[in-house]
């Protein structure tokens, strides 16, 4: 008999009921109990090896110019300092740009953003390293920095060339349209503010190898970059991450520099080196969501139907390209949101500025494009004097339409979602009540908005749409699962484990999810683009199916039955022979297979079908499918202070057939609140010198519990995905963030009431009390003036 742990429920018991925790069940997060006890281990919690040192970078104090003197003597002399590392000390590649080159590990004679790392200091303690880093004597020859999108556009300062997407002939359609509208919106960026700041722990190994524990969404890229800076083959570098304390895109490319620096230091000193950014360093040193300056010209008819659109988007990329090309592209892909713009031209600029290089953040440019669509729709509604919801519904895509990048619209369930939500949340009745209330109350105004979300699922860089998984079945029936996806709180490990439990039809507690590590599953894609469960779920399913098919073949031979006589059921394998069922505990069956020399381990693989995109012609099918949903928000503003409160939000969201409704609802609620924060209280600001002025939790305000609407309802629209995704589910990570746009539209609606809904207020984001008050005052002076 094989060994069975006392913690394993006896198999006989498991036979009496369906397997627990399979896909579709409301299972708690696999680490929930460890989270609440504080025993879930993040990288800074790992026991430190003896001799561990701490690295901190020295930062530039200007945003643009040449370094004329870098005197590090006082840094060396500082207490506890073991080493000081500059660009010259990097043994291999010094450019750690993830896609495009340009991101130097340390500044090479010139500075391009305020806070740019100049060197690293390694000390016995973190505090000693922090104090030492401040001792550097640096002199600069300052140059005039470019600090805004407008400035970059004027000076033709770009990290990549502009890109255009077109459908039909926007220019002539605009000219011939009955009415023309134009407008612009400045959308500010957003700090990821994951609670666990960036951290890497590098431990030197044999043959110049390096083990790196890194809080990253992209272990394979960290592995590649560490290998490059050390000038060693990838096979000598292992990167592991069990979990992150939040990622939100901020640990897709931005985790790598600190891993590389830690690895260089560890390699030089042959001692373990930890590099943790404290909050203030994290905020200054890592990229954020891009600001966007968006402009439109629309041709519409008198009903408010869009006939033509000419749109210009300009992203605030910072000093290097990082992922900005794909981010601006995604803003362009989503500038139609749910609507048929008909003849369309969209141009996207990638502005180079002397600020930290902006990067991925949940939605990846999509939100900045999508909010502009909603801005346009509201503007049209005011221009034609209709309820914005009616204008939205009038302009929705229909099956058979095509987007401005040539992807056909199919399985378009959004009209049905909107109608359902509109009825469920009493939109019309509340609209009437609010209009009446606003007429009678001079100091408080309410606003209401119902806005849709349609978000394309797939990496737009096609080769990334692949994943691997590794499944081992042990002889006691327990299963070890590894896959290329990383866990940042989104519940990916839970969902993929549920897939495995489902495939073998065993209880979830038999499935152990292991830390993501590059030596188990190689060449992985980042856990990003909402693709985690789509890709890794499928890869894990594939691995299970390989093992299962071996087991079935074995059973056919061993028991003398046909494949159809073998089934996996209630933690057992059931062999039907001559009309009689033989139930073998899963553990007994796999042990039997093992004794008959059947491999119980398999690597699974998946690549997303159907997608193709030609960027030269800006056409194709970049997205496997769209995830959709709608949100309705109600707000109340104070017309004397601009302060406001979000009173109510109702969301109906499409996750296909949910892999885990509890986790999916958690993603939707969390995404909405994060999106609301982006558009309300979270204000990223740089001062006139290019210094981040919102560089701490004291000045950068993410929502707290009291900001959540008191009435907050989230429901799943349970239509199976028409595409062959894992159990016909849909991706859920990013799309719900854009439900926050409903709050911004509701604020604008409340402001518009001040001028009797005749004018569309300018309300750049975030809509802080200050911006709301300014918008109210603009409405008041319009009223007074005319």
């Amino acid at each position, binding site marked *: 008999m094989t060994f069975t742990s006392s913690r394993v429920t006896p198999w006989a018991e498991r036979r009496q009921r369906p397997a627990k925790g399979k896909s579709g069940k409301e299972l708690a997060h696999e680490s929930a109990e460890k*989270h609440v006890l*504080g025993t879930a281990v993040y990288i800074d919690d790992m026991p430190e090896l003896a001799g561990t040192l701490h690295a901190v970078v020295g930062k530039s104090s200007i945003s643009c110019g040449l370094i004329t003197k870098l005197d590090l003597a006082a840094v060396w002399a500082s207490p506890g300092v073991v080493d000081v590392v500059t660009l010259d000390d990097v043994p291999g590649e010094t450019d750690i740009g993830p896609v495009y080159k340009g991101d130097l590990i340390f500044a090479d004679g010139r500075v391009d953003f305020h806070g740019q790392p100049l060197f690293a200091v390694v000390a016995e303690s973190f505090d000693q390293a922090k104090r030492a880093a401040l001792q550097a004597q640096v002199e600069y020859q300052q140059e005039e920095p470019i600090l805004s999108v407008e400035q970059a556009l004027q000076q033709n300062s770009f990290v990549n060339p502009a890109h255009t997407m077109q459908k039909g002939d926007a220019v002539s359609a605009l000219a011939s349209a009955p009415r023309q509208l134009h407008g612009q919106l400045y959308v500010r960026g957003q700090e990821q503010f994951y609670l666990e700041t960036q951290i890497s722990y590098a431990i030197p190994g044999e043959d110049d190898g390096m083990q790196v524990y890194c809080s990253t969404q992209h272990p394979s890229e960290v592995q590649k970059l560490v290998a490059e800076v050390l000038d060693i083959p990838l096979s000598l570098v292992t990167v592991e991450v069990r979990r992150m304390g*939040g990622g939100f895109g901020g640990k897709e490319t931005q985790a790598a520099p600190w891993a590389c620096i830690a690895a260089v230091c560890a390699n030089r000193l042959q001692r373990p080196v930890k590099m943790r950014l404290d909050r203030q360093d994290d905020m200054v040193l890592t990229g954020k969501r891009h600001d966007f300056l968006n402009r439109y010209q629309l041709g519409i008819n008198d009903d408010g139907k869009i006939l033509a659109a000419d749109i210009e988007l300009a992203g605030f990329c910072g000093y290097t390209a990082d992922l900005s090309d794909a981010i601006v592209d995604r803003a362009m892909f989503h500038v139609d949101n749910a609507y048929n713009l008909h003849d369309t031209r969209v141009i996207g600029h990638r502005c180079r500025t002397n600020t930290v290089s902006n990067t991925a953040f949940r939605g990846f440019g999509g939100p900045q494009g999508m909010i502009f669509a909603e801005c346009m729709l509201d503007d049209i509604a005011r221009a034609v004097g209709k309820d914005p919801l009616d204008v939205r519904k009038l302009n929705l895509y229909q099956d058979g339409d095509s987007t401005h990048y040539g992807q056909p619209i199919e399985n378009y369930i959004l009209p049905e979602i909107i109608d359902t939500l509109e009825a469920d949340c009493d939109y019309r009745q509340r609209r009437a009540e609010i209009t009446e209330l606003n007429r009678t109350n001079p100091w408080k105004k309410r606003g209401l908005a119902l806005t849709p979300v349609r978000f394309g699922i797939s990496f737009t860089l096609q080769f990334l749409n692949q994943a691997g998984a590794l499944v081992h079945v042990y002889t006691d029936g327990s299963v070890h699962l590894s896959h290329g996806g990383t866990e940042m*709180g989104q*519940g990916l490990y839970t969902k993929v484990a549920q897939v495995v439990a489902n495939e073998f039809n065993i209880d979830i507690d038999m499935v152990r999810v292991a830390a993501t590590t590059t030596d188990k599953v190689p060449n992985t894609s980042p856990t990003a683009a909402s693709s985690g469960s789509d890709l890794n779920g499928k890869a894990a399913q594939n691995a299970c199916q390989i093992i299962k098919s071996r087991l079935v073949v074995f059973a056919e031979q061993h028991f003398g039955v046909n494949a159809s006589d073998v089934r996996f059921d209630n933690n057992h394998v059931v062999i039907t022979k001559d009309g009689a069922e033989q139930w073998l505990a899963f553990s007994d069956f796999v042990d039997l297979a093992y004794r008959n020399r059947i491999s119980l381990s398999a690597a699974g693989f998946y690549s997303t079908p159907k997608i193709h995109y030609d960027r030269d012609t800006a056409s194709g099918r970049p997205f496997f499918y769209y995830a959709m949903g709608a949100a309705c928000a109600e707000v109340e503003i104070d017309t004397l202070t601009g302060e406001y409160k979000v009173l109510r939000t109702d969301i109906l969201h499409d996750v296909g057939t949910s892999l885990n409704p509890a986790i999916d609802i958690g993603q939707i609620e*969390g995404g909405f609140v994060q999106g609301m924060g982006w558009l309300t209280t979270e204000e990223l600001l740089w001062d006139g010198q290019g210094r981040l002025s919102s560089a701490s939790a004291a000045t950068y305000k*993410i*929502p707290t519990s009291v900001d959540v609407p008191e009435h907050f309802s989230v429901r799943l629209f349970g239509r199976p995905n028409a595409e062959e995704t894992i159990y016909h589910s849909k991706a859920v990570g990013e799309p719900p963030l854009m439900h926050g746009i409903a709050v911004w539209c509701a604020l604008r609606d409340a402001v518009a009431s001040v001028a009797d809904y005749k004018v569309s207020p300018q309300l750049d984001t975030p809509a802080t009390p*200050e911006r709301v008050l*300014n918008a109210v005052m603009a409405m008041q002076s319009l009223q007074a003036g005319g």
Partner: protein
Amino acid sequence: MGVAKPLSNRRDGRQTGVSVIRFNLNGRWIESSEIDPNCTILKFLRTNLKQVDVKEGCAAGDCGACTIMLGQMTEHGIEYQTLNACIALMANVHDRYLLTSSGIGRAGKLHPAQQALVDCHGSQCGFCTPGFVMSMANLQQNACKAPGHIPDVAEIHEALSGNLCRCTGYRPIIEAAQRMHELPQQNLEYISLRSGVQSFDPRDAEQPLLEANGRRLFMPESEAQLKALLALYPHARLWAGGTDAGLEITQRFTQFDTIICVNRVAELTRCSEPGQDADDQLWLGACVTFSQAEKLLAESFPSFAQLLHRIGSRQIRNMGTLGGNIANASPIGDTPPVFFALDAILEIDGIHGHREVAIGDFYLGYKQTVLQPGEYLRAVRIPKLKATEHLWLHKVSKRYDDDISAVMFALYLSVEGGVISSARLACGGMAATPKLAEKTNAALSGKHFAVSSFEQAAAFIDQDYQPISDVRASDQYRLQVTRNLLIKAFHDMTTAQGDAA
């Protein structure tokens, strides 16, 4: 930094010249020496004790990932409150009971706060979770001590106001904080007292509590001891709640040579003073915390008490003191404008003896006060409002909870026979110091209590203040909203939304 070790059976580990602190962590007594006075609780727990269930999210008291419960033995048993371990000095744990998330539950036997969070799917990335657990557990502990009291949603928000979560959107956490009260309650005193109560010989409070690396920290317990120490160390860094001073250590990496903690000085933590008539004024010791003041002010100054709910977070209010808020001399402290409006008297004491100054004379400039080296703020006195007197307060910030004011607006009015006999508007965030709006006040005085008087007075705001533009607001918004608040104050007062006796 010293190595912590469990306390043996010795009753007193301290020998002359050796500074030792003792505290109880999750039921285990620990004593430790040679702790740097600048060491925070979080740093000690994580680095020295490897107590890694307490997380660092911001090291500035803003995110709550490091929230712990700190208990003090009283005649009612141990009374706990939450605080931010990241900015609180280790000295604060001396003779106190600490609880952390791994101490209050274990796998298979979770504390109700923990169980409810699991049941409600209240964790995603899990990094903020131990901090939420402690805020919730403290709420549960309070409920445990007041049987029958189930916290409502407002109390829950209040308890969670200092805990940031970036993943969940809070909805499941709020639900868990409601549902935990349906689970069997658990009095956490039993965990703290697992290894028994330890009593110690009184220490000599004029000796350093902590001493290491040539730096020292004193924790006097009486004004006499405080004065004796100030005579020796007139330039010592005085430390009350430390909610701002702590940032100098964790954000700027300053190391103070001599720190004198004043928040255990008995006289300064009192809320009444012999000989001071309590009928017409309130006497508040400088080290009364915001949390204590919420209760003390609730009856006579409900709008002031209400304002206190918006200062920092629950954790910060448990640490921060009224005196600290005044003496810190920040232009954006929330209580000084209120004390200006109320014409408070400040009691100062120290090596030069006792003196009193009106709050209007206390500030000399940005971060500058009349306090001399060797002096300390002892107490603040505020007159109670008569039937004809009104106090109207409003704080404007980007975020409702746990944010710093763009403008803090505090208006006192005395209205007799429909005429404003006296007006005192003071604002924070509008100048380098908290400041009275003298011209506006003059414009209001003697005028009818009518909207036109407020509208006319609002025109003087621009003469009283020349605010700056910064990360919190522009100068123009600050001026505009201050003018508008004058109007709002009138409308609210006419609908009786201010303090009046």
